[in-house]
């Protein structure tokens, strides 16, 4: 055999192998099954109505809620932990009041989450929160609220920070008085019944409704000496306060991300790396198992084995039971979706809910829209970057003992290569939608 034969043979092999390969070219294509999976992730439909809040789709309520959202007059006293100190991004000095609004921690220019606090894993307000502040953009698509799901409706969620020491450190009594003092006409135009005249400090019945910053949970609060009927009056005002805020927050939706445009047929909307990342997202990495639906969250709770203490976590507690602790808080809250102040108690989700061991250390699946804008990540802000989040899942979560409870069975090593991790991150960046209309990002 001469070299000529070998040369001919080699040429033949090259042609054969080249012919054997797909002629699809360099771009990424998906199978029919993959396309079906992808199609279920977009577009982001209209926010479903919330039967427990009949004002959720009320434009006037939303406009009213927007005012409330930016108003600091509902807040209480800044505590020592939350006081402004060197470089921590605090909002005032110890004892200051009226310095905190919803917008203080859900900053409109930052996907309605906190980018002010230092360190940014948790948030400094009246004190320090124990968890990372979730963004409010697209929050209305969730079924459960807070990392631990201790609110079963958006309006329920809006109320809890008001009376939390680390957040607004205020009370429902003070909210009722502030509404009467500042928004009486608007409130009365929207809600029935009108604000009780007893909320007027000059009223003869004013002592039925003492203005106090101490919430019901405080044994020193005058709330505990009030008549149930008066408590009911205040609770209803407080619930309506939350429902107005929820109506506004329902409008905070970001759509038309590159991913949405790609699914709609714009092939150029995502680059090749992002498409490869999408393939991993729905395939090898199986992210879509939990990050499902247009919100990219299954609205369930999973223990992903996040190491509770890592990085700069000065304010993160050493232990966090997650959903296991959230369920009792939800069921004990008179102002939940199943309670008397719900507009449809039968549609509430708190009734009959019991925490089990499976809930220990579990947290709500984060919706991944806007995720590139919402670091740091995880319930305590333990993980700073998306790359590190991918690494966390690639490892199959942390080692047992570094977190509460037992990891979800789905948390197993993904065996991603470095380039695959990069592709996933690229895809996550393609989930950033158009900004919320500017008119919604400022107060009156």
């Amino acid at each position, binding site marked *: *055999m001469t*070299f000529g*034969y*070998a040369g001919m*043979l*080699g040429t*033949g*092999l*090259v042609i*054969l*192998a*080249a*012919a*054997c*390969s*797909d002629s699809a070219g360099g771009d990424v294509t998906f199978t029919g*099954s*993959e396309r*079906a*999976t992808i199609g279920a992730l977009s577009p982001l439909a209209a926010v479903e109505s919330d039967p427990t809040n009949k004002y959720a789709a009320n434009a006037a309520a939303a406009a009213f809620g927007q005012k409330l959202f930016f108003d600091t007059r509902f807040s209480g006293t800044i505590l020592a932990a939350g006081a402004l100190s060197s470089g921590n991004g605090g909002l005032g000095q110890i004892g200051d009041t009226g310095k905190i609004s919803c917008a203080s921690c859900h900053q409109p220019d930052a996907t309605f989450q906190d980018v002010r606090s230092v360190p940014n894993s948790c948030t400094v307000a009246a004190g320090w929160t124990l968890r990372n502040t979730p963004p409010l953009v697209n929050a209305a698509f969730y079924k459960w609220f807070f990392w631990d799901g201790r609110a079963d409706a958006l309006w329920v969620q809006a109320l809890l920070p008001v009376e939390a020491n680390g957040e607004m450190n205020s009370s429902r009594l003070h909210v009722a008085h502030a509404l009467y003092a500042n928004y009486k006409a608007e409130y009365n135009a929207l809600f029935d019944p009108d604000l009780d005249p007893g909320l007027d400090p000059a009223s003869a019945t004013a002592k039925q409704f003492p203005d106090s910053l101490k919430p019901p949970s405080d044994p020193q609060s005058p709330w505990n000496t009030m008549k149930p009927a008066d408590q009911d009056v205040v609770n209803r005002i407080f619930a309506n306060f939350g429902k107005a805020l929820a109506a506004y927050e329902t409008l905070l939706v970001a759509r038309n991300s590159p991913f949405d445009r790609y699914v709609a047929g714009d092939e150029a909307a995502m680059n090749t790396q992002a498409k490869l990342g999408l393939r*991993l997202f*729905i*395939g*090898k*990495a*199986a992210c*879509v*198992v939990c990050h499902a639906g247009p919100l990219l969250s299954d609205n369930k709770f999973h223990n992903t084995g996040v190491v509770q203490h890592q990085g700069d976590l000065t304010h993160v507690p050493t232990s966090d039971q997650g959903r296991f602790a959230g369920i009792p808080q939800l069921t004990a809250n008179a102002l939940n979706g199943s309670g008397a102040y719900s507009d449809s108690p039968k549609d509430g989700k708190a009734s009959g809910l019991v925490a089990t061991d499976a809930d220990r250390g579990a947290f709500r699946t984060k919706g991944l829209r806007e995720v590139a804008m919402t670091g740091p990540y995880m319930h305590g802000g333990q993980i700073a*970057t998306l*790359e*590190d989040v*991918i*690494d966390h899942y690639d490892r199959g979560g942390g080692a047992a003992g570094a977190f509460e409870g037992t990891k979800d*069975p*789905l948390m*197993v*090593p*993904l*065996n991603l*290569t*470095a*380039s695959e*991790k990069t592709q996933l991150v690229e895809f996550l960046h393609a989930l950033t939608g158009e900004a919320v209309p500017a008119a919604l990002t400022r107060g009156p």
Partner: protein
Amino acid sequence: MSEPAAKRGPVARLATMIMNRHVAFVVAFALTSLASTRAWAQVAQDPGDAGAPTAGGAGPSPTQPPPSAGAEPAAPTQETRLRELEAESRRLRQELDELKEDHKSTSDRVDKLLPIANKFTGYIDFGFFGTTGNGAGIRNDTDYAYFPEYRTSGIAGQWVFYGDPLATMVNARGEPADTGPSRALTFDPIHNGGKPSFIVNSIDLALFHAVNESLTFNAAVDFIPRTRNVSIRGQNSKDLPGLGDFLDVKLGYAEYIVPTQGWSLSLFAGKFDSVLGVEYRTQDAPDRLAVTPSLICRYTCGRPLGLKARARFLDDRLALNVSVANGSNFVELFPFYNEIDSNNVKTVSGRVSYDLHIGKRFEAGFSGAYGAQDLQSDDGVPQWQTGADLSIDWKDIVLTAEWVHGIAQGAANIGDPPCATAPCLHFTGAYAQLGYRVLNWLTPYTRVDTRDAFHRDGTSFVYISQLMRVTGGAHFEVGTNVVVKAEYTHVQQLGRAPQFPNDVATSSLVLKF
């Protein structure tokens, strides 16, 4: 290179040198003797007078009277002629003495060199390949469409796989074009989506050293040039990715040939060839008839660490191989392999074979292995396999066939999903490969192989592999240092798995030295 070749080469070469010297000496001696004999014969037969042969064919006797006067004058006298012959004889004796001396000197040098015989060999395996589909031999059953029984198993549909992650092997090392979404087989050294690509499959270097005629050392290393990022992963994204190139220490063992009579016994220690089946003998590119391994090579072609004994009886017809090793005889690429053991129970493997001595080889063997499951710390989780093989090299036909069946039992705690503590693997596979030497440099071949396997790891993944492959190719020997091979493999899914494109065309140009 294969173990027998490594062992045989330098010794054979030295033996050949010695033999050659002996032959030269014998030939020289014979020629010298012949020359002398012929000279004496000439003397005896020299008519001197140019007369015709005597009747009866008998030559004139030395006692015969000289030719009569008046005849043609004989220039040299008989005495002169005798002196010349004596001188010639002395010269030839001197030459013979010199040759004897030369031979002795050579023998002495060979005897001195023999104990330090070294051999350095290697090869470069260069190829070109392409596949249909995306280069991966598996697909995921995302919607549980084909294996609905796993819908409630806790395993994400993305991690329910059908096909075989090694079905798209493109080279002698058994590396697939792409592992795709595989979760068990995670090392993806080629990872090019099956696109047509040139590739240096391996650069192999092998060392042999003979301490003496009984004790030898062998080592072989593959240097593997690959793409950045695929072989060395950083601990997190902040780490710089490593170079893709890596090396694979394939062999590293000592062999001691125990002095015996009537039978032979060799002892091995280190990282040596498998004892199961026959495919391991020809698994390296220069030795392999085909370009790629069979589907079951993963179970029998590994190179475990431990101790091995090989005995041959009945004029080498009956052979017995036994090894005690850290782990199974699985290949390193497959996720059952313990180079360094993680449990206390070693794996015992053995093979018994009989060669009918028909043609170059007509051998049948049975083999098996038993030990603690690879990569498990629990000694109580067993892993075993058994197999049978047939190897025929008769006239111009080369046939090999193997069957293997085995189980890695796996384990799970009460309440956990099956196989959660230790993965489960059940496998049965076989192949038959037939080659025919059409010409001394051309051997077309065909192979049919099949694999039926179940591999599950808790909720992490499950593979349901039921497939058959048909391979056709040709093997060209271009001189003594170049081998060219090319083949096409069609992969056919069996059972419930749907067919998908993952055929492979691949080739190999092996340059050996």
